[in-house]
């Protein structure tokens, strides 16, 4: 290539024709666009690529939208009808629930907001934004402002719904519903805002401590409901005083929100990119798992994230040989990270609360559902051993042996849970249904077994198989098993506790649990059954080929 021509090309490209030092002009300072201009440009590109407008998208999704509206309407109707019914109850249990349960909802909503904020950020950015936008000299605070607002709006909506639903379901007045709905919403927003302020200061200790504190407060409120229902003590709060306290809560939450919001906004530009992007990656992973209705995967992502945050542990020596070593490691894992035990302990309140609230008939199913949710955290070992098969292949045990070993420690813990819930079935609080000691014991065991087995079923769920033939539905093609993942676990809870709900002997529930255990803990899961079926099919085809070959030989011989 001709050198001069090449230089000319370069000169044209850069816009500089004079290569001499004397004539060199100072390069013009690049004009940095504002965050708003940048976003406008990105939106223009996005709109340019859009193939449907908003109305067309709505037309396509009308079934989902109408279904959501119908279900939402039905739920609101149920809540209002329940509110009217429960508002007429004037027993000590109902009054205590009406006074204290909104407090519990308030505390637990704040705790949840803090925990979620700490997990995700709460301010976050996608990897693409991290790479293309956050690395530019554009003002980062302006870019991230809408993210903080989005997080606050989510907290507002969820907090308001939780506060309103709990107050309505306990028979609170319209004023109480309005007060607690506002209070819970503002407090949840304040929690998110405080977490954002901490994020900007590269700290999260206060968020963590506040989170634990609110969990404890929430549980204490729940225990108070039970205590009052059981007649251990009385709060002596009137409805008017309760509303006044609620208004004070609204005021305090508003002040904390205002102060923390100012801090959070001031610190927005200081949040490191790595923290923003890691939250975005987590959301991306979890949302992908949720789109596939693979809730197990969503949980795996969160668990892996927590483990990475811990990073290092003090190694502990194992104990025993063979399966004993596996059981011992499960115990050690639980001792190392005992949080699941606290959650499980918290669910002990559920059967007592049901009794205290006069819902004794529903105690088994509600308690089993609560235990189901809490037990999932205990079954981390089972999850790892069954999700890919890679680790299980390294261990010299059958699948059934592996599952039983992984479940032994959780089963012992749940058995203790069952023993501690027996008094709830014996009859607890005013108006609770009473049962003889033997029946109460069996009910407690059956309920605990239902909850644990539901968690075992949930834990062993495989993600949907997108390579299998799809099922045609009005909403498009679905892989088989996609929708059943939604009900996984809940089905075991409901079927196993149905006999107790219908007033039959708990022995029926125990029999159902025994059958479920045989299926879930043996090698009789769906995958193994499919494998066996495929193996049998292969055998049949092989036999058919042999028969055909033999017949052909026979014909040949006859000729």
């Amino acid at each position, binding site marked *: 290539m001709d050198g001069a021509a090449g230089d000319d090309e370069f000169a044209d490209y850069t816009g500089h024709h004079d290569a001499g030092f004397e004539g060199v002009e100072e390069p013009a300072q690049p004009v940095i666009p504002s965050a708003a201009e940048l976003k406008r440009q990105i939106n223009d590109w996005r709109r340019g690529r859009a193939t449907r407008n908003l109305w067309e998208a709505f037309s396509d999704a009308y079934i989902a939208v109408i279904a959501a509206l119908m279900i939402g309407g039905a739920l609101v109707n149920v809540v209002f009808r329940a509110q009217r019914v429960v508002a007429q109850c004037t027993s000590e249990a109902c009054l205590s629930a009406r006074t204290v349960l909104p407090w519990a909802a308030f505390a637990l909503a704040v705790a949840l907001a803090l925990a979620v904020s700490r997990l995700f950020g709460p301010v976050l950015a996608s990897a693409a934004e991290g790479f293309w936008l956050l690395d530019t000299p554009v003002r980062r605070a302006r870019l991230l402002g809408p993210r903080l607002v989005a997080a606050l709006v989510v907290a507002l909506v969820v907090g308001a719904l939780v506060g309103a639903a709990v107050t309505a379901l306990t028979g609170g007045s319209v004023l109480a519903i309005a007060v607690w709905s506002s209070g819970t919403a503002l407090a949840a927003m304040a929690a998110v805002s405080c977490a954002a302020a901490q994020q900007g200061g590269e700290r999260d200790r206060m968020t963590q401590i506040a989170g634990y504190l609110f969990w404890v407060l929430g549980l204490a409120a729940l225990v108070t409901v039970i205590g009052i229902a059981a007649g251990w003590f009385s709060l002596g709060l009137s409805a008017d005083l309760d509303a006044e306290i609620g208004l004070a809560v609204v005021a305090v939450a508003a002040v904390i929100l205002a102060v923390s919001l100012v801090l959070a906004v001031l610190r927005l530009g200081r949040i490191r990119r790595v923290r923003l992007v890691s939250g975005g990656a987590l959301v991306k992973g979890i949302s992908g798992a949720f789109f596939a209705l693979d809730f197990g995967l969503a949980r795996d992502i969160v668990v892996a994230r927590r483990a990475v945050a811990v990073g290092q542990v003090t190694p502990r020596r194992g104990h*025993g040989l063979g399966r004993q070593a596996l059981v011992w490691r499960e115990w050690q894992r639980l001792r190392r990270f005992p949080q699941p035990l606290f959650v499980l302990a918290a669910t002990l309140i559920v059967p007592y609360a049901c009794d205290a609230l006069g819902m004794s008939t529903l105690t088994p199913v509600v308690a089993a559902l609560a235990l189901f949710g809490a037990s999932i955290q205990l079954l981390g070992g089972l999850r790892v051993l069954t999700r890919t098969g890679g680790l299980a292949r390294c261990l010299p045990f059958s699948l059934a042996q592996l599952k039983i070993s992984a479940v032994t420690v959780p089963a012992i813990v749940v058995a203790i849970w069952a023993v501690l819930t027996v008094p709830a079935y014996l009859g607890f609080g005013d108006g609770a249904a009473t049962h003889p000691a033997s029946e109460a014991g069996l009910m407690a065991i059956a309920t605990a077994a239902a909850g644990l087995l539901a968690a075992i079923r949930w834990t062993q769920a495989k993600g949907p198989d997108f390579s299998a033939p799809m099922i045609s539905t009005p909403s498009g093609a679905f892989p088989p098993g996609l929708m059943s993942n939604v009900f996984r676990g809940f089905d075991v809870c409901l079927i196993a506790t149905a006999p107790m709900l219908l007033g039959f002997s708990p022995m029926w529930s125990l029999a159902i649990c025994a059958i479920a255990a045989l299926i879930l803990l043996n090698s009789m899961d769906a995958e193994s059954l499919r494998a066996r079926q495929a193996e049998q099919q292969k055998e049949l085809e092989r036999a058919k080929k042999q028969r055909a070959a033999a017949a052909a030989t026979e014909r040949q011989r006859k000729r």
Partner: protein
Amino acid sequence: MAKRTTVLKVTGLKRAFGKNTIFDRFNLEVRAGEAIALTGRNGAGKSTLLRCLVGADRPDDGSVEVLGTPMSETSPEIRRNVATVIDDLDFFPDLSVVEHLDLLARAHGLENPDRMVDEVLDEVQLVPQSGQLPGTLSSGQRRRLALATAFVRPRKLLIMDEPEQRLDTEGVSWLSGRLQTERKSGLAIVFASHEPSLVDSVATRVVTLGAPR
């Protein structure tokens, strides 16, 4: 000299995805002390074949036997005899590196698990990371841990899919030496590899899959 035991026998193995046949009528016999290297271009079916050999994938036809027992991934006897290093190895997120190895050694009933774990940990150079949780390891360290899981337990057949992946030069050299020692001590080895030095130094036979380039 006594005839060596047949550890792995593969007869008429076939695997196809739809109309695309990956391999058909594949036969292989591996005796104790033999090392078979599977080579071939990307997509030739090396990993699929190995997955069929360890029971992670189901062949469409044919049979796989390990020491006379038909391959079944769920059989404790097969799991006791076959150590594998393929890509689907999972880890407990809350158990440290050394605890994983300790668990495996104990689960396989080793009388002196501590000594074996220390030796292997030292060999794969993961002693400084022994207390780390697997999620914090680099990809190379995770590979070393995966290899360690195969060496910390008793085994008669070792199946590995590209064991050199993500290892540094020193790591590949160590692996080569270790596999030679394993082979000489009577272990049967089947491995897929793209690393000529590893294939040359370890394999007693080379099987090339797929059409040549």
